[in-house]
């Protein structure tokens, strides 16, 4: 087959993503699914952009931001953690072996600020448990020591 004719038969790659938008609190782990349809193999890349101008360190958001995509339709699952509060857009880009980049639709992610842990009750537990165990250990040893000295005297 004429290579030029074959190239004309190839359709443009497409990317669909779901859901369209997400809400979360800081620290929450989220999942986005995307379907990449392409006649040629390529690499799918996850991107996160802030709509508030906040700096986004992609490594903090996800440990896996690139995935190899074979020819034909491929379903991909992206897991990421909402690290910063604010409004963000998460989107997938296909980098084909030849030709232009193809970007998928954006997923709007709204991340709410939250003081996640209750300091007030954590501190008493953090002090009480070792104090209790330490006291039990010391009491046990003192009692054994007293028993010995009592018997020896």
């Amino acid at each position, binding site marked *: 087959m004429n290579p030029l004719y074959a190239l004309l038969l190839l359709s443009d790659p497409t990317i669909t993503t779901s859901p369209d938008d997400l809400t979360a609190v800081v620290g929450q782990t989220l999942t986005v699914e995307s379907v990449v349809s392409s006649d040629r193999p390529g690499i799918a890349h996850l991107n996160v952009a802030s709509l508030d101008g906040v700096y986004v360190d992609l490594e903090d958001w996800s440990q896996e931001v690139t995935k190899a995509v074979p020819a034909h339709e491929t379903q991909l699952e992206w897991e990421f953690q909402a690290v910063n509060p604010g409004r963000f857009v998460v989107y997938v880009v296909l980098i084909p072996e030849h030709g232009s980049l193809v970007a998928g639709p954006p997923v709007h992610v709204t991340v709410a600020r939250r003081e996640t842990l209750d300091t007030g009750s954590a501190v008493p537990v953090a002090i009480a448990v070792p104090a209790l165990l330490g006291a039990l250990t010391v009491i046990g040893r003192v009692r054994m020591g007293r028993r*010995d000295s009592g*018997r*020896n005297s």
Partner: protein
Amino acid sequence: MASIEARGLSKRYGARNALDGLTFATDPGEVVGLLGPNGAGKTTTIRLLTTILEPTAGTFTVAGIPGDRPTEIRRRIGVLPESAGYPPRQTGAEYLRYAARLYSRRDARDVADRLLTDVGLGDRAGSRISSYSRGMKQRLGIARALINDPAVVFLDEPTLGLDPAGQREILATIGEIAVRRNATVVLSTHTLTEVEQVCGSVLILDHGKLRTAGPIGEVVGAGSLSDAFLRLTEEADHD
């Protein structure tokens, strides 16, 4: 029936013969001294007869039970091992009660209390073993060796490191075991005077071989046990 009977008992570690063809027999109620210089094979003999080690060759019976039934033998013997260790945090009573439970004794508490009294530790039963003197620990070890009313008792260097008073107490206890319990006692020691005091017969080992066995009177002849011991072990060195 012999309380211990060994025939051609041998133990090899690679090329070294720790024990070579030991043959002897003892009677119930007899106190047998096991003598020999360091490395003679005394502890190996005791470990073979108490089923801790397996012989390379030979057969034996202890309390009429053949050596290929080790669990049954262990039910009928009591042992004070050489350099026995003791759990320092347990009390003497706890230590003996545990030992009694290991022999499935239902009267663990009673037997522990009785034996502690028998060996003169009744007033220290509730003290931790870490507070015991060496002599007290040895007496506790002897009490443990008697926890199952054994037919044969093996004592490996029971007076090692004790002062003369401590040695006398232990020897008195050993004499009582044979008389009151009609148990055979095998006493391994370096101290020849101890053997002369409490033993009726003696086995002298050297370099893994039995040099002589029999009643002390026959072994000693006209001289002393010390002379006989040195003659027999020095002869071996010239062999």
